[in-house]
């Protein structure tokens, strides 16, 4: 499971820390035990002095106070030195590389890096009674080329760690020949929240624009159909009735006079209005014309 957040200063963006390994606690415990043994004489002296306060009087008492104080401060100073030497030795394994940080006392620090794809072989060694019982040992990582091998000394559960390093090495090789995941390519400077607020990707946005174009075209087609619809609605039922009368008249006259022209059909209210008889004396349809009429 990767460790989240930026765990060390030189950690790259998109680099995830999988292992943060320190030497087994037994290494520091052995040193601490030795130093604790050195503190015991001072503790015994204090106990004896508190029981017999007149034993150490005068200059001897002054001398013992100064000496014991200096001795105790030196011992805890050595403990601090040992802790810095132990605790700041770190082995970091990420999804891209291995970082070996070695702290040698004060003001001496060594950092070595190795890319995972440069690993040739990983070997775990457990040698000794204490190592076998407490499960700690060394891991030897063979590198390609002239680089020195990486050694993880006195690490806990070396077999498990070696296996995990091999798995990360294989995953790094596979990732090298496969396209990167989109989230690895997104950098902080390129992130724009408005692109992701609706949960849509750029591909979805392009498709949506295309869909809107098609929809607008459909709307145009519908609009032309509406014009046709309006034209149909303008043909009122009254027009239909007039048309039927005309048809019936034409069928009646056609039976007597075959030479009569066919009835002209008119559409619209303006045409039917012209077919009606005008009270001023104009001819209606079908009416014969008498040229001898005297209109005076």
């Amino acid at each position, binding site marked *: 499971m990767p460790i989240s957040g930026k765990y060390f200063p030189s950690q790259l963006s998109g680099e995830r820390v999988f292992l943060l390994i320190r030497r087994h606690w037994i290494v520091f415990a052995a040193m601490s035990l030795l130093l604790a043994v050195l503190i015991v004489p001072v503790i015994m002296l204090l106990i004896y002095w508190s029981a017999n306060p007149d034993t150490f009087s005068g200059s001897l008492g*002054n001398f013992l106070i100064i000496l014991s104080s200096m001795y105790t401060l030196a011992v*805890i100073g050595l403990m*601090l030195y040992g802790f810095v030497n132990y*605790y700041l030795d770190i082995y970091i394994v990420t999804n891209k590389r291995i970082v070996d940080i070695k*702290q040698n006392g*004060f003001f001496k620090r060594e950092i070595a890096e190795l890319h995972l794809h440069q690993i040739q072989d990983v070997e775990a060694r457990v040698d000794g009674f204490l190592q076998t019982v407490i499960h700690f040992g060394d891991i030897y990582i063979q590198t390609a080329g002239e680089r020195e091998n990486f050694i993880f000394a006195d690490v806990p559960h070396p077999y498990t760690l070696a296996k995990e390093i091999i798995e990360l090495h294989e995953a790094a090789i596979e990732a090298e020949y496969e396209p990167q995941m989109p989230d690895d390519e997104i950098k902080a400077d390129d992130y724009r929240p408005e692109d992701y607020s609706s949960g849509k990707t750029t591909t979805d946005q392009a498709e949506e624009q295309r869909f809107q174009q098609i929809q607008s075209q459909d709307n145009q087609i519908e609009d032309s159909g509406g014009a046709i619809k309006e034209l149909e609605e303008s043909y009122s039922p009254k027009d239909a009735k007039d048309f039927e009368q005309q048809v019936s008249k034409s069928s009646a006259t056609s039976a007597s006079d075959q030479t009569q022209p066919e009835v002209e059909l008119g559409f619209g209210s303006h045409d039917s209005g012209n077919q009606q008889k005008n009270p001023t004396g104009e001819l209606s349809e079908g009416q014969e014309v008498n040229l001898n009429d005297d209109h005076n």
Partner: protein
Amino acid sequence: MIFLLVCYFVFLVGFIIFSASGLYHLWRFGYVGDLTKPVMVVYIIVAIFIIVLTLFAISLRSWPATIS
């Protein structure tokens, strides 16, 4: 006896410089959530306790110029 006091205070100066360098390393190269901060606190408390106790004992006793 005064000479002993002088030696002790010189030692204290060196101890403070040594401790400051060690604490600086723990503060700078420690990571989030590790033991560096607690160890720094414990070390400072223990060191101050020992120094204060010693100075208290020095103040209670007489320090002649010569060794008697």
